[in-house]
């Protein structure tokens, strides 16, 4: 990525907690990343790693309370969307940032037909009248590959299959030609052959429309095929960030390295025994004072328990551009990294 192009989205020091009766959960801890124009940023992590909460909190989709965004700024162009009024935020959501959710079964309203739901953002944000919105809705449904789009406008979500519903969701997200599309596990609920269809569709739409995409997933295989750059999240923070080929060829963080070894593949050499990461992912009951991966890390040493590592650049470039990792251990030397 060229260093210097103005990012479409720039997130700095985002911190989100959930205040629950059982105590606070620090779901997101000072997460920073940026999104270049036209780029596809993959975000990987296990459940509870904070990847969805990060994206939900930056566009104000978390229920507050119990959630609370404690700190951070989210620059969309020149606007800090954490500071705008709810009305302004409504103008941004759907218009400048599109969202595709994981579960296509529950994210469409069952009592409105598809035509209504695709036309809604067009009428709300683009000021179109009914017939304009209808014409555009047909175009959009054709764009995402729904056959016989005009007739299907009158159909209800239950008349569509899972893959087709996800296409409808993508059509809605794309309706107002947003600058940023956030896709939260868009293919997780789908079968592999349908997942392949959706991935091809997104690749095709990217070249056609040129928007920037954040693609959240737990599936490293999907990331390998689609992303330009990857954020790896663990315990509510970014532990590693790199261009996709660099990440898979030269992983630095012990978590990333272990994760890449635990997943089997359908091609290549078959492992006779799977490597495992012992232990459980953490529940962040307090703001981290130590590295969240320490209890499961094979390379942990005293400093890991005393100090939560900051992201440091690997090789040339600065943090956030190029390759960086949040770890006290140096994968190259196999010893402690310089402070």
């Amino acid at each position, binding site marked *: 990525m060229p260093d210097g192009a103005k990012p479409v989205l720039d997130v700095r020091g985002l911190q989100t907690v959930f205040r629950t009766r059982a105590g606070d959960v620090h779901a997101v801890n000072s997460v920073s990343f940026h999104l270049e124009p036209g780029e596809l940023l993959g975000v990987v992590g*296990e459940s509870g790693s904070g990847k969805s909460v990060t994206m939900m909190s930056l566009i104000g989709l978390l229920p507050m309370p119990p959630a609370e965004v404690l700190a951070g700024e989210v620059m969309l162009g020149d606007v800090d969307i954490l500071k705008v009024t709810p009305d302004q935020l409504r103008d941004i959501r759907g218009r400048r940032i599109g969202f595709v959710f994981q579960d296509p079964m529950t994210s469409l309203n069952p009592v409105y037909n598809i035509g209504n739901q695709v036309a809604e953002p067009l009428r709300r944000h683009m000021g179109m009248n009914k017939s304009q919105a209808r014409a555009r809705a047909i175009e959009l449904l054709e764009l995402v590959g729904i056959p016989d789009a005009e007739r299907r406008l009158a159909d209800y979500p239950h008349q569509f299959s899972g893959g087709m519903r996800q296409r409808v969701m993508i059509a809605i997200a794309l309706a107002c030609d947003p600058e940023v599309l956030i896709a939260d596990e868009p293919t997780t609920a789908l*079968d592999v052959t349908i*997942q392949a269809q959706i991935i091809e569709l997104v690749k095709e739409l990217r070249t056609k429309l040129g928007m920037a995409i954040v693609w959240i997933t737990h599936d490293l295989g999907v990331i390998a095929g689609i992303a330009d750059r990857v954020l790896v999240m663990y315990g509510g923070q970014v532990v590693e960030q790199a261009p996709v080929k660099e990440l898979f060829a030269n992983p630095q963080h012990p978590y990333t390295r272990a994760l890449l070894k635990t*997943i089997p593949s359908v091609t290549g050499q078959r492992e006779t025994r799977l490597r495992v990461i012992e232990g459980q992912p953490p529940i962040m009951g307090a703001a981290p004072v130590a590295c969240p991966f320490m209890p499961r890390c094979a390379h942990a040493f005293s400093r890991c328990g005393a100090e939560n590592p900051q992201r440091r650049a690997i090789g040339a470039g600065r943090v956030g551009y190029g390759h960086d990792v949040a770890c006290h251990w140096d994968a190259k030397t196999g010893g402690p990294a310089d402070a």
Partner: protein
Amino acid sequence: MLDAKPAKKLVEVKDLKMYFPIHSGLLRRHTGDVKAVDGLSFDIFEGETLGLVGESGCGKSTVGRALLRLYELTSGSVTIGDEDIAKLSPEKLRTKRPMMQMVFQDPQACLNPRMTVAAIIAEPLDEHTKLSADEKLEKVYELMDAVGLNRAFANRYPHAFSGGQRQRIGIARALALNPKFIVCDEPIAALDVSIQAQVVNLLEDLQEQYGLTYLFISHDLSMVRHIADRVAVMYLGRIAELSPREPLYADPLHPYAKALLSAVPDPDPERESGRKRIILQGDVPSPSNPPKGCNFCTRCPEVIPICHEVKPDLAEVRPGRFVACHLVKPDNNTAAGSTGLAEDFEYNQQGEPKQ
């Protein structure tokens, strides 16, 4: 493996059909059937793991449940050991239950939230054995050790455990009666990536330790490649291809198996960019109204006219490899004097003996 004993069939399934009736109209008349499983025949050999893969709705879970007769079969036979369990009376069936067990997909839903771990694991013992309370507790502790649960947690309730640990409780319960055959129905689908490997390794260790035979149902083709000896690929209630693991993944023969394998993303950007992907058009047809001819004919990229007319039978086209497709013809040199199933299994194991 020249000195290997010929593998023994443990489970033999013949023409298994499982239809669920559709009742509609005011009088709730029987108007059709969902043909969830439509004529399946296969064997599972002692000590092996048969992977059963397919997309949602293809009937793979129904097969697993039908094999243990959790459903009353529409037709067909399931022989486990030497008895056709499809025809046993309920009392007889109960006495056979200890040898066949199941591990379920959702570790949250399959454990009673009001029972302690010890009570959950001991429940099969209460039902089927006459052990004293002390003996039962001893057995529960043994099982907890075997699956890697700390004995100190025996009196806790399921909610106190994580998903991976709950799955271990489910596995311990399945093991309690020393079964021979375990159906694992998507045992890792609900778990995180880093936990999946832990559970799969545990299942493999237990298989070796207790000489278990698994039917491993999953939609995760890469995990099935890891754990299974042979793999059956299902599509819309029928087996498309049943092959030993390595040849299937290296060179799938059925067009659906090809498409399915090519659709699995590869966690390696270099390999991924060089792969040719077969994108199937459309969705799976409804099992209540499967297409005439081959079930896959509506989406098959290589479809020919006969596919719309005649359902292909599952036939052995290479030693040990069974394919149901008009396009895949048996090799001349193997088809005629084709080997029996037992020998095929030896072939499957070649190069990678189990011991």
